[in-house]
């Protein structure tokens, strides 16, 4: 602590400490703890809060699993279905994203000349100046029944009737994959870029095929970047709201939409909190699993 003060001077040190403490305590810990507590409380009108009925209860978590008491089903198939579908789709989107971004990141890091790599990075970043909602609507226009893509496909005679990209969730997958592409590319790019190019040449000189070189040299080297990109993309995809609202098919629900409904439309903050906590828990478990799978430590992921 003393050396920290000596190194940065009193003014900067104090600023850092206040900023970090404020960020951690007021913006992360207190709201999350409040939500956690709220998720274990019944949904009461304001007048009854803090009264004798305001006790800790598992009612909202029970609701997620068993559904409302008036329901005839044994389990809450609808909510559990939405939840599982969200997690499954997020995992699929993460995998698609990884497969899609790895070649691009490798190209930028090792193949392209510095100038064209920079140009490519700019080309990747600029579309993200447009906000997520607008980008989603733009994709909706592209993928609509009489949208640009269908018109082109029909116009060129490749298909006879328009494809319903929205109902097939193609639009949703595309939108979600595109939404967080940078968060996959940059960790991958950073990781691959730090690989000594001589290692690639050495592998090639020893007779290695391109695929083997990637499998044995590049991917093991970049695994921290892969884990980092996958966790970020997964978390943000599972927690996305705007893209699924705009692009999902009418009968597909995203779990965040349920959370949104409990908070806003049904005015049931406790249940919304419980659902949020569920999503957060699964996301954290996913991150821990990824780290286990890739044998990376948390310090390597954020590097």
């Amino acid at each position: 602590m003393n050396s920290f003060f000596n190194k940065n001077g009193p003014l900067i040190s104090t600023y850092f400490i206040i900023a970090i403490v404020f960020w951690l305590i007021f913006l992360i810990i207190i709201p999350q703890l409040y939500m956690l507590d709220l998720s274990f409380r019944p949904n009461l009108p304001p007048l009854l809060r803090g009264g004798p009925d305001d006790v800790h209860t598992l009612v909202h978590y029970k609701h997620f699993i068993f559904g409302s008491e008036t329901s005839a089903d044994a389990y809450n198939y609808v909510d559990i279905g939405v939840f599982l579908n969200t997690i499954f789709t997020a995992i699929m989107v993460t995998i698609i994203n990884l497969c899609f971004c790895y070649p691009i990141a490798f190209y930028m890091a090792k193949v392209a000349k510095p100038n064209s790599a920079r140009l490519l990075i700019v080309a990747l970043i600029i579309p993200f100046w447009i906000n997520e909602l607008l980008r989603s609507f733009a994709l909706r226009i592209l993928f609509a029944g009489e949208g640009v893509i269908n018109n082109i496909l029909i116009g060129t005679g490749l298909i006879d009737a328009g494809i319903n990209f929205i109902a097939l969730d193609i639009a949703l997958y595309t939108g979600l994959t595109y939404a967080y592409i940078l968060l996959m590319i940059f960790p991958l790019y950073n990781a691959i870029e730090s690989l000594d190019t001589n290692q690639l040449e050495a592998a090639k000189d020893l007779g290695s095929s391109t695929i083997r070189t990637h499998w044995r040299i590049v991917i093991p080297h970049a695994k921290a970047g892969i884990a980092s990109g996958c966790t970020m993309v997964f978390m943000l995809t599972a927690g996305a709201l705007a893209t699924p609202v705009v692009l999902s098919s009418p009968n597909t629900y995203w779990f965040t939409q349920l959370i949104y409904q409990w908070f806003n439309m049904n005015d049931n903050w406790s249940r919304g909190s419980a659902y949020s906590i569920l999503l957060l828990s699964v996301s954290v478990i996913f991150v821990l699993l990824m780290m286990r799978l890739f044998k990376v430590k948390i310090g390597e992921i954020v590097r």
Partner: protein
Amino acid sequence: MSADVELQNISVTFGSFYAAKNVSVKIKQGEFFSFLGPSGCGKTTLLRAISGFLDPSEGKVLIGGQDMAGIGPNKRPTSLIFQNLALFPLMTVADNIAFSLEVRGTGKIERRKRADELLELIALSGQGDKKVHELSGGQRQRVAIARALAIEPEVLLLDEPLSALDLKLRQKMRTELRAIQKRVGITFIYITHDQGEALTMSDRVAVMNEGELEQVGLCDDVYDYPNTPFVATFVGENNPFYAKVLSINKNEVKVESQGNTFVATAGKINENQNHSFTIGDEVIMFIRPESIFIKNENNKLDNNFSASVNTIEFEGNLKNIYLKINSNMDVRFSVPNAVDTSELSSNKDVELTFSSKKAVVLPKGSLAVD
């Protein structure tokens, strides 16, 4: 198996810049051949052209008589040792060595057996399960050699692999590399800017400058009979005397420099061909520091001059004595440490002598910049 390597009129251009310019050389089967030159002279470019990482803009690379055009580095009978070794840090030593076999689909047991054999060759038996970072610099060096030898290449290419080592280890590795080459008997092509390295290890050297071959020959020939002023000054130390040709007699040229007259052999291109001079030509005469002696009763050779002592520099085994002729031209000579130099104080005039057989006259040209 070992193969010869032939470069036929190789040129490599980057835009309008010639990294290599019309290089032709024949490297014999089983030879230890070095390309020697300052950084940026194009030697690494040539090595990359031989290994297949770079296509020459013009010319051909023949290995074992076969044209290598269109054959990638993974298909050539060559193996390259990188300057930074490029060992795979996430694999064990044995996996590194056997990587080329893994690539070829050799089974695990067979791979391990071969790795152990090679570890024995490089005197690292039993270290196969270590990670690369657990080895010392010299050990890593040897692992890189073993990895390159595992595919049984016909030609081993080495890109300044010793440059990262400290002096003692570097000297030890020179001997070791030479011994390994003798044992495996394949062609070694070595790239270095260190003339000591090139001269101690190689059968023949090619001296390069600015993308062009200056001279190819046996080590002592290149040292004793440099072909160009660049070679004369890049390989070893040399004193250039800017001079004018006075007379010519067969291989001997009489020149005048700073008021002194010297006789020297004309530099030769090869056995039969000498540089030809005419009287009055502007030339440079080179005489090496170790060929100049203090003149006395017992030591009197056919060339003599006088100069004044400037400074004496102690270099361990040698003492370098810096002189001035007519107080404007620098000359340096060196004597073994054992020689008593107490009489040579600053500004004292001394008489010096050297043999015409050790002096070489060459046409004027650019020197290697120190």
